């Protein structure tokens, strides 16, 4: 056996070496630009209403336009910088967000709709950019920032009157009893034969 090991030590050494390298790579693998927030912290953040800012409160904030460069070129909010959402994690964009963080600036994201902004905002927060807020509004095709309509917010605007009784899946027992109640009809025996017929 010893002789076998000695004569084949190089060939036997290869798989052992490969295994050791694999283990080392797994131990010291570089973490991707990691998430800083756990799932439960993210859920808390999702419900945090202080993470939105209204159109009237933009003074002194760094406004970031998430629309495409073409739309940005056609018009944008005053003092806005353009970071298209596709390029949110590019080197230049991250550099810019790092600068904002370093300078203590609050960045406010806006786009064509609030929906366009929600995911980039949440992603940046999960990556540790806690100085990023989202606008409770959007930019119109005429390049005006306006607040989000109530129907597009998380407030309920349902008018359930059109549903009537169908909305209630349970049947009112009293109503059911009424509907099933059969009218009793008394049989009346004729006192005399009818005079009908020819």
């Amino acid at each position: 056996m010893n002789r076998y090991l000695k004569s084949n030590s190089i060939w036997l050494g290869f798989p052992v070496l490969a295994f050791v390298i694999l283990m080392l790579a797994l131990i010291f693998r570089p973490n991707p630009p990691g998430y800083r927030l756990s799932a439960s912290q993210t859920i808390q953040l999702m419900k945090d209403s202080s993470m939105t800012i209204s159109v009237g409160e933009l003074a002194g904030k760094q406004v970031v336009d998430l629309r495409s460069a073409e739309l940005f070129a056609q018009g944008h909010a005053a003092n806005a910088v353009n970071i298209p959402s596709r390029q949110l994690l590019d080197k230049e964009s991250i550099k810019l967000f790092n600068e904002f963080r370093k300078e203590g600036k609050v960045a406010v994201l806006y786009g064509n709709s609030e929906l366009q902004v929600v995911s980039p905002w949440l992603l940046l927060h999960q990556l540790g950019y806690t100085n990023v807020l989202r606008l409770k509004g959007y930019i119109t095709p005429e390049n005006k920032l306006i607040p989000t309509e109530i129907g597009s917010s998380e407030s309920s605007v349902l008018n359930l009157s059109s549903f009537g009784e169908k909305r209630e899946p349970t049947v009112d027992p009293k109503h059911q009893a009424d509907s099933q109640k059969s009218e009793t009809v008394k049989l009346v025996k004729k006192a005399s034969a009818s005079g009908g017929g020819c």
Partner: protein
Amino acid sequence: MEKKYIYLSVLLVVLALGLVILPGKDDPKETNPKLLLSSVTEKSRYLSADQITHRIIENDPTLLLIDLRPASQFKTFALPGSMNIPVDSILTSTNIEIFNQPGKDKVFYANSDLTAEMAWMLCNRFSLKRIYVMKGGLNEWFQTIIETKSLPVTASSADMELQSFRIAARQFFTGAGPSTVAPGAGQSSEKVIVTRKAPGEKSGGGC
């Protein structure tokens, strides 16, 4: 001791270490943020109110509607067949099992699409598949289907067809409409006047 036993034991120890270090199968697999961003820019996760309505009416077995609103709002009104998972409890182990159901399209909705979008984002971070967002949420669904507006006479035939689908859908959901009888109408207390002969009265029939 023979050397071969030493080699063997060293190899076993290394293998055991490997098993300890390797990520377990149950560990939630996180999507790389850049990959997550590319799926954010992909819009195929959005399903319109009309698409959802079609699938509800057809009783699509692959559709699993998830209502993310609080239980109180869910009790007041919810889309037929939907399941209430308030956003707070979205990533409990039971709910992850629900989201991992094979062959099901999990469609998130709340009053608008903002909460659903965030919940979609979180689920995608943890590599949960076949999650969709109902565009506009329940508010838009209500406006589109239940409060559907009449079209001008000049509307295109495609628009008219869509409109007639929405009107039919409204009847399906509310049970009320111009051409159908409202549910419960048969049980209503409609008064039927039964005229009876007075006892003893002779019939005057015959020719």
